[in-house]
């Protein structure tokens, strides 16, 4: 039911972990299943220099987290803000219909982290 990309990112998730003294931390809990994702950012000159995540969730949630982190590492904050849930799902080669909501966690948590980073800077 999962694409090879999903399985790959699920099996070997990129950027799992925590950043000490992160510049921004964001979090999202799925309203439909209670699954949860946490994103840690290191930002320099508006560029995401490092990103780590922790996810409590299904295969799709973990793969989405990993894919998201890969997609935005080294990108500007604006580019990261433009990332949508659909783009994450597409990059994974699609998700089964009942699993589409799982990709929401990733982009939402990322955007939350950026928001918190910006709020802290002000």
């Amino acid at each position, binding site marked *: *039911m*999962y694409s090879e990309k999903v*399985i790959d990112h*699920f*099996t070997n*998730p990129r950027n*799992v972990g*925590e950043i000490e003294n992160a510049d921004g931390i964001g*979090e999202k809990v799925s309203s439909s*299943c*209670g*699954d*949860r*994702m*946490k994103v840690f950012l290191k930002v320099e000159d508006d560029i995401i220099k490092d990103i780590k995540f*922790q*996810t*409590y*969730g*299904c*295969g799709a*949630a*973990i793969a989405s987290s990993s894919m998201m982190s890969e997609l935005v590492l080294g990108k500007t904050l604006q580019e990261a803000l433009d990332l949508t849930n659909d783009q994450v799902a597409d990059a994974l080669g699609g998700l089964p219909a*009942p*699993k589409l909501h799982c990709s929401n966690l990733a982009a939402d948590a990322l955007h939350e982290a950026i928001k918190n980073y910006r709020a802290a800077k002000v």
Partner: protein
Amino acid sequence: MKRIYMDNNATTAVRPEVLDAMLPFYREHFGNPSSIHWAGRETGAALEAAREKVAKLINCSPAEIVFTSCGSEGNNLAIKGAAEALRERGNHIITTAVEHPAVLSTCKYLEKHGYEVTYLPVDGDGMLDIVALEAAITEKTILVSAMWANNETGTLFPVDKIGAVARNHGICFHTDAVQAVGRVPVDVEAAKVDLLSISGHKIGAPKGVGALYVRKGIRLVPLIHGGHQERNRRGGTHNLPGIVGLGVACDLAGRDLPEVSQRLRRLRDRLEQGLLAAIPESQVNGHPSERLPNTLNVSFNYIEGEAVLLFLDMQGIAASSGSACMSDAFGQSHVIDAMGVDPMMANSAIRFGLGYDNTCEDVDRVLEILPAIVKKLRDMSPFYHERDAASVTA
């Protein structure tokens, strides 16, 4: 990579003796058993021989067996059929919160048609309180439907006590014994059961066949109207190969049950104890003793069951999260939920259903692989890290 199948509560492989017995009925003896010619006579005899075998396993008379296409059909036929036949006497049905979807959604359907349904709760072990059952009975109660063994946890209900209560009140008693038949001794007389559902593919018979025990004298409106097959209780041309297979599977189950159930219990206990010892903050869901010998439902806190299953699958190990139904795998299990298990613990529940072909090596391989999977997923889980932080702070 060796494949290890531990999802026998979802479905089993057909046993070789069963398949051998079925094969002649596809091309050689393929007649319709309702026909009067040679082709029908051959299969007619096989049909009745199979009926006797099924009857023997559950201690009823052959005429009380109605062949169906699956356990779900049996549950629908029993519940809708009895509810309609008994409608004049009342409209109240008692069932439990942990039944299979084939029972629960049938009851929900009947609620739309003027029936009232009580869903009895279970305790933390998934056990039914017989006092609660007694208390739920009203003058209008016409049917009790309570499963023999739970498919997700393996918890065994006290069917004989339920049967005695129902009989005392003159209430019809249906039990979904799809997981029980062939795995634990099932005797419809001892348990005072009136209707009992069986599914072939859980006990080494093929998919596409099942049976419903209907106690003599119990009236039932058919679910599948049609010809005169099955004494007017189920229309449709008989699935002869499947029925023959079910007969042989029941025969084998009756013969092997004591030995196989002991062997599987030992394997299951080894798996259970090994996992609990190797993985902290894990727990068994289900009754400690009153449980199917082949079933282990176990939770590993802080992680998600589906993720565990995927990693197991990549190593060739097939297990499941409760109901075999994929869509259910995404939500929470209604069974574990009804047991009042903490939601995060509940979310990590996975089920091992051991089967005839499993070996000690299979168990040891799971014991070798699973702790590392849990560790990997916990390392990824924010809840797990927060727990560490919390305990460090404390």
